[in-house]
C-alpha cells in the first residue's frame, strides 16, 4: 500500500518537473563549455573568461570542461556531438580545419553551428636574442647551406605551427624536410627546449611567446600575419620580407547541429555583446582581458565566421594535400617501433615469470589447493555479487544519457543495496539521502555536470 503511494508520489513529482522543462525559458540550467585543450593554456584561458562573462550575463552557472588529448580530436568531437539543446557549447580552434584533412576525424566545420569567433593569432618564427640570424634571408641561407641539420619545434607533428612552418619553407622554395621538426606537446615546452639549447628555432603564435618576447629573451624573424600586429610592432611580416605566406590560428565558439534556432540566437547575441566589450564586470571586460594577455581580439559574427571557416578549411586542405606534406607525416621513428620494442621486452619477461611461477608451484603445491577448497563454498554468491557490481556500471553506461543520473542511480543503488542484504526500508532511506547529496555536491559545489536525462536531471 505505502509502496504504491510512494510510486505515485514519484510520478507526480516527475510530471511536474517535466512540465517545467517544456517551458521556453532558456537558459535555466548550467551551461558547459567543452575546451579541447588543457587547463592553463591559451584556449583554456579564453574559454574560462568567456564562461565567466556568460555566467554574469545569462545568470546560470557556466562551466569549462577540458576534454583534452588526440591533438584536439576528442574535445572538438565531444563539443560538436553533444546533445543539441544549447546547454553544451563547443570551443573550436584552428585544428578543426586540419584534423579531418589528416584523416583523424570525420567532423568538419559544417557539422556545427558557428556562434562567434573571438580571436586570431598569427604564427611567428622565434629565435633566442643571441641567435646569429637577423632576418629571414639569413635563416634561409643557413638552411640551404646545411639542409637537414637545423632543428625546430612548436607543436606535435602535423600540428598547427608545424604546418605554419612547413608552409613558410615551401613559400621560400625550400624542401619541407630541410629542417628537422622535433615534435613537442605545445608551445611552452618547445620554448623551454629552445632556451635549454636543445633546438634552433621555434614556430608558435605571438601570445604564446609574449612572455619571453617582453623579457627580451626571444626575438622574432617574421610574423605570418597580413599586416603588422599591434603590440608586436617591431616584428616584420613575412610579406614585408618577400615571402608570400600568411597563417593565423583562431578560436571560436559553436553549438551542435540541430540546436533550436531561438537558443542559438540568444547565445549569439550574448557572446557578441561580450566580445564587443559591452559586458563589464568590476571594470573588466573581455577585450581588455584579451589585450592584456596579448591575444589578438579579432572577432567575427556568425555568418562572417562561417565564411571565414570555409575559406580557412579550403586553404589548409590545399596545403595538407600537397605533395610536400605527404613526407612530413613520417618521422624518424615509426609509430610502431617503440611499442614493438616494449612488447618484445614484455614477452620475454612474461616467459621468465611463467617459468619462475611454474617452478614455485611445483615446489609448494599444497598451499594453493587448501586455500581454494575453503573458498569454494560460497563461490556462487560471490560471483553474483561481483556480477551485480559490474552490472551497475554497465547499466549506468547504457542508460545515463537517456534516463538521467538521478532516477537511474536511485534505482541501481537501491537494488544493489537490497541485493547485498540491506533491508529495503533503510535502502530507500539511504538512496533518498545519498543520490541527491552526490548530485548537488557535484553539480553545485564542484560544478561538474552529471548526465542529464530527458527530464532534465
Amino acid at each position, binding site marked *: 500500500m505505502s509502496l504504491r503511494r510512494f510510486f505515485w508520489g514519484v510520478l507526480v513529482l516527475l510530471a511536474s518537473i517535466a512540465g517545467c522543462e517544456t517551458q521556453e525559458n532558456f537558459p535555466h540550467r548550467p551551461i*558547459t563549455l567543452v575546451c579541447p585543450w*588543457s*587547463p*592553463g593554456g591559451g584556449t583554456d584561458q579564453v574559454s*574560462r573568461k568567456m*564562461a*565567466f562573462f556568460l555566467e554574469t550575463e545569462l545568470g546560470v552557472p557556466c562551466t*569549462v*570542461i577540458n*576534454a*583534452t588529448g*588526440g591533438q584536439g*580530436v*576528442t574535445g572538438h*568531437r*565531444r563539443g560538436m556531438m553533444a546533445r543539441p539543446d544549447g546547454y553544451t557549447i563547443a570551443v573550436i580552434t584552428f585544428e578543426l580545419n586540419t584534423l579531418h584533412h589528416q584523416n*583523424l*576525424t570525420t567532423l568538419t566545420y559544417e557539422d556545427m553551428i558557428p556562434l562567434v569567433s573571438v580571436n586570431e593569432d598569427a604564427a611567428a618564427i622565434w629565435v633566442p636574442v643571441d641567435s646569429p640570424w637577423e632576418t629571414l634571408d639569413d635563416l634561409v641561407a643557413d638552411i640551404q647551406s646545411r639542409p637537414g641539420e637545423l632543428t625546430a619545434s612548436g607543436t606535435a607533428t602535423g600540428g598547427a605551427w608545424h604546418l605554419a612552418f612547413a608552409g613558410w619553407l615551401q613559400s621560400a622554395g625550400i624542401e619541407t624536410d630541410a629542417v*628537422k*621538426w622535433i615534435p613537442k606537446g605545445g608551445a*611552452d*615546452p618547445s620554448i623551454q627546449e629552445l632556451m*635549454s*639549447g*636543445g633546438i634552433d628555432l621555434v614556430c608558435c603564435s605571438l601570445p604564446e611567446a609574449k*612572455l619571453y618576447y617582453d623579457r627580451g629573451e626571444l626575438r622574432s624573424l617574421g610574423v605570418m600575419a597580413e599586416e603588422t600586429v599591434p603590440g608586436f610592432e617591431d616584428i616584420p611580416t613575412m610579406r614585408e620580407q618577400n615571402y608570400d605566406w600568411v597563417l593565423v590560428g583562431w578560436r571560436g565558439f559553436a553549438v551542435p547541429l540541430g540546436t533550436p534556432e531561438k537558443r542559438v540566437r540568444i547565445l549569439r547575441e550574448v557572446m557578441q555583446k561580450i566580445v564587443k566589450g559591452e559586458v563589464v*564586470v568590476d571594470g573588466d571586460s573581455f577585450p581588455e582581458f584579451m589585450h*592584456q594577455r596579448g591575444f589578438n581580439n579579432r572577432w567575427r559574427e556568425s555568418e562572417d565566421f562561417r565564411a571565414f571557416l570555409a575559406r580557412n578549411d579550403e586553404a589548409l586542405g590545399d596545403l595538407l594535400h600537397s605533395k610536400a606534406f605527404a613526407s*612530413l*607525416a613520417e618521422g*624518424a*621513428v615509426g609509430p*610502431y617501433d*617503440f611499442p614493438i620494442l*616494449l612488447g618484445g*621486452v*614484455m614477452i620475454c*619477461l612474461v616467459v621468465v*615469470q611463467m617459468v619462475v611461477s611454474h617452478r614455485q608451484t611445483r615446489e609448494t603445491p599444497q598451499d594453493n589447493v587448501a586455500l581454494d577448497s575453503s573458498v569454494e563454498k*560460497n563461490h*556462487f554468491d*560471490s560471483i553474483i*555479487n*561481483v556480477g551485480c*557490481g*559490474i552490472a551497475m*556500471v554497465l547499466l549506468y*553506461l547504457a542508460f545515463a*544519457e537517456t534516463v538521467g543520473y538521478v532516477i537511474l*542511480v536511485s534505482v541501481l*543503488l537501491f537494488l*544493489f*543495496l537490497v541485493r*547485498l542484504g*540491506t533491508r529495503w526500508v533503510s535502502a530507500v532511506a539511504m538512496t533518498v539521502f545519498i543520490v541527491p547529496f*552526490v548530485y548537488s555536491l*557535484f553539480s553545485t*559545489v564542484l560544478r*561538474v555536470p*552529471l548526465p542529464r536525462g530527458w527530464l532534465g536531471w
Partner: protein
Amino acid sequence: MELQAAFLAVFSVETLLTILLCGLFGLFVGSIPGLTATMAVALIVPVTFYLSDVSAIAAIVTLTAVCIFSGDIPTTLLRIPGTPSSAAYVDDAYALRQKGRYANALSTSLMFSVTGGLFGTLILFLCAPQLAVLARQFGTYEYFWLYALGLSCAAMVSGESRLKGAIALLLGILFSLVGLSEVHSEPRFTFGSEELISGIHFIPALIGLFGVSEVLRGLWSVGQSTTAPSINDTPVQTDFSVVRLLSEWYSMLVRRPWQTIRSCSLGTVIGMIPGAGADIAAWISYTFSKRFSNTPEDYGSGSEEGLADASAANNSSLAGAWIPALVLGIPGDSVTAILIGVLMMKNINPGPDIFTQPEQVTLIYSIYLSFIVANLVLIPIGYFGIRTSGLILKVPQRVLLPVILLFCIVGSYAISSSLFDVALILLFGILGFFLERYQFPLGPVVLGLLLGADLEATFVQNLTKDRSLGAFFSRPLAAALGIICLLIWMAPAISAGVRKVRQTSSRNKSA
C-alpha cells in the same frame, strides 16, 4: 618594512578566511578519487577575480597542499588513491589500516606532508633563483632520463617480485601508447574508435585499478562472509589525540632527520622541473627510502618510514613547482600554469623582475608567508579530516561498497564529462581484480600510464635530433641522470653479485 606589510596582508581576516575555506574545500576534493588538485584550482579561478592578490595566491597554495594530503585519506581507508601522487605508498597505508592503525598512517602522512611543505617553502625562499637556472637546463635528453628514472623506480620497489613489477610497468606503458601521440601523426591501437584517439586517461585507470577492483574484491568477500573476516572487524585504535600526533611526528623526525631532508629535497627538486610533479616525486623518494632503509622488507606491507618519506616528497614538490613559475614565468605543473594566469589577470608578471622590483617584494614575502600559513593550517584541517573520515570504518561493508562504486562512477565522469571514462574504470577494475589475484602490483601500471607516453615522446625526439644512442649522454646533466638510471637498473645484479661474493667468502672462512 616589506615584511610587515606582507604580515598584514596574510594575516588579514579576508586571507585567513580564504585559507580556511579553501582548506575545507581541498580536503573534500582531494579525498574523492577522480577530482584532482588541478581541478580544484581551476574551479576557484573565477572566485579569485574578487579576491585580493595575496588571498588569491593563498587560496591556490592552500588548495594544492590540502588536496595532496587528503588524497591519502581514501588511500589509507579504502585503498583507493584520492590523487595519483598517493599511488606510490597505497600498499603501505592500507596495510597499516588493516592492522587497525589507520590513524597512525594518516597522522604520519599528515605531519610529513606538513614537514615537506614547509621544507619546500624554505628552499623556495632561500634559493629559488639559483635552482630555476637548473630547471632551465632540462631538454629532451634530460627529460628522457628523468622519466626513465621515475618509471624504473616504480618497478624496483613494487612488492616481492621485481619481475612482476616490471611486467606491470610495461603493461602500463603499453596502455599509455594507445591513441594519437604528440610525436606521430597516426593514431595507434584505436581500432577505429574516435574516443580512443586521445588515449587512456590515467585517472579513470587509477580509479578502476584501485577503486573498482577493490569494490569487486569486497563484493567477492561479502559473498564469502561466512569464511573470510570482513576488513571492518579489525581492531581500530582509539587513542588518537593532537598530543600523540605531534609527539609521534617529533620522535620520527628526530630518529631520521637525514632521510627526511633527503625526501624533501628530492621532492622540491623534482617538483621544480616542468612536467614532473608530485607523483614522480613520491615514487622516486619512496624508492630511495627503500634502498637505503634498514628494514626494506617492511616496504609494501605497512612501512611508516616509506609513507613518511613519500608524503614529505609529494608535498614539498608543490613548493618546488613554484620555483620556475615565479622566477621564470614557466609553469612547473598544471596548477602553476593556472596560477600564472591568475597572476597575470592581476597585473603581476612573474619572471626575474618580480624579485627585483621593490613593489613586488611585499608580494614575494606574502607568498612565502601564505605557504607557511597554509601548511600550518593543514594540521588542524587534516586532523579534522582524519577524525571525520574514521567514521567510514563504522559503515558496514554491504552499504559502503555500492556507495564507493557510485563515487567511482561519478568521479571518473567528472574528469571530462565522458561516459567513455566510466567504461574505462570498469575495464581497469576487472583488470586490477585479476592482476591482484595473481599478485601483480598495481602501482607500476598507473605510473606507466602516467609517464609512458612522455617516455616515448622524448625517446623519439632524441632520435629525431640525432640517430646515435651516444647522444643520450651528450649533455652533462643528461649524462649524470643517465648514469644514475643505469646504476638503478643494474643495482639488483650488483647487490646479488656482492651477496654471492660475501657468501662464498664466508663459506671459505667456515671451511
